[in-house]
């Protein structure tokens, strides 16, 4: 415990490092996943290719990716940019699937109504499909946020400073309190970002506050149809 009180500055600095590593990938992966997810939802051929692609990408373990990536994109192993790119890739891998499922979960009748009143495909996407898929996208983005914060700690073993540095430093010096502090700080940061996303969701999607949200039920529904 005394370790924590005498090293609050260190913990705070590593927390800031961690924010720098984990927030950009969360935002970037969302921005990249929307067009990719739309392609996967809109085109049958694209669906197969994109979804198996992101599936395989997600299967790549983090540490080897952190090591291989610099040799492909030309950063150094320890540079924050290297981790940001790698974490963005994982975020995209998770999020594309969610975007495709979310868009597919929009009621067919609603979509046809939009078409009937003369919305172009572009308007229909931004005014109808995207907002209605909102709750599903938010749920996916929350998963991305929490796993990105957790995953960013791995960078510490290759020397990138983050809250993960508390694990490597604590392990090497045999300070249990330091590791525990690192775990708590990581979880708190994850929960804080998660909470921020929930708040943002309430602000941007005021209609979800009163009515129970449209759940990510698209796969379930088709499942039931198949069984029945």
């Amino acid at each position, binding site marked *: 415990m005394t370790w924590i009180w005498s090293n609050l500055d260190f913990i705070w600095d590593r927390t800031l490092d961690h924010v720098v590593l984990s927030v950009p990938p969360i935002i970037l992966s969302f921005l990249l996943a929307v067009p990719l997810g739309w392609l996967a939802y809109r085109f049958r051929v694209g669906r197969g290719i994109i979804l198996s692609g992101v*599936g*395989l990408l*997600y*299967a*790549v*373990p*983090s*540490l*080897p*990716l952190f*090591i*291989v990536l610099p*040799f492909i994109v030309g950063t150094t*192993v320890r540079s924050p940019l290297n981790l940001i790119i790698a974490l963005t890739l994982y975020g995209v891998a998770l999020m594309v*699937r*969610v975007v495709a*499922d979310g868009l597919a979960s929009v009621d067919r009748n609603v979509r046809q109504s939009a078409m009937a009143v003369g919305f172009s495909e572009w308007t229909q996407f931004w005014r109808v499909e995207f907002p209605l898929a909102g709750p*599903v996208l938010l*749920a*996916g983005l*929350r*998963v991305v946020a*929490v*796993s990105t914060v*957790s*995953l960013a*700690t*791995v960078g*510490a*073993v*290759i020397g990138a400073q983050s*809250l*993960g540095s*508390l*694990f*490597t430093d*604590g*392990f090497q010096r*045999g300070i*249990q309190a330091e*590791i*525990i502090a*690192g*775990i708590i700080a*990581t*979880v708190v940061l*994850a*929960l804080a970002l998660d909470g921020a996303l929930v708040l943002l969701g309430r602000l941007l999607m005021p209609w979800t506050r009163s009515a129970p949200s449209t*759940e*990510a039920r*698209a*796969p*379930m529904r*088709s*499942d*039931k*149809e*198949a*069984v*029945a």
Partner: protein
Amino acid sequence: MNFFADAVAWLFDPTNYVGSNAIGIRVLEHLGFTLLTLVFASVIAIPLGFFIGHTGRGRGLAVGTAGAFRSIPTLGLLTLVALSVGIGLTAPYAALTVLAIPPILAGAYTGFEAIDRATIDAARAVGMSEGQIVRKVELPLSLPLLMGGLRSATLQIVATATLAAYVADIGLGRFLFTGLKNLDYAQMLGGSILVILLALLLEVIFTVLQKLVVPRGVAAGRPTDIWAGFTKLAR
């Protein structure tokens, strides 16, 4: 691209295939470690998941715990356990089993939950006992989602087993850490390529398995993996 050529040369250098640190031995270690942890976690998670899925009891607790576990950093857990029990294989086994339980548990109970209640009522109506319902109706119908859970768990274990080399002398991660320490690019890249190939191979095997366990007659529109379960967990 020179670095990758060196890595490939390292992978095919016969001298890397002898001794206690041989590539073949490390691959087997990694694979054995992964499978054994998967078995440990399954023995705990699958019966528990079936119980939750069949009875609906304890669901809130399971969802909450699984959600909380997602935010716990694997490296933190690994180093903490290693520091408590000492250098050796106990720490990685314990930490990885704990990490692999939530996805398997989620796969097991969401598999049961995804089944149409009418199907189960029908089974009850034709006179099946609770045991028969579980074995003959719920279990087969839930297999694809359970397999999805096992797949997520396997990915998690393969990745974390690499990290485990940080606290114990095990698996392919050794090449990565030795390479990093000595700035031996060929070794760290070669080792990384091996881990990635192993992970992708397991992913492909599980994708095929998942397709194979879908019972005949329900092939259309099955959720193919555990993603739906994960988005649910997040809430």
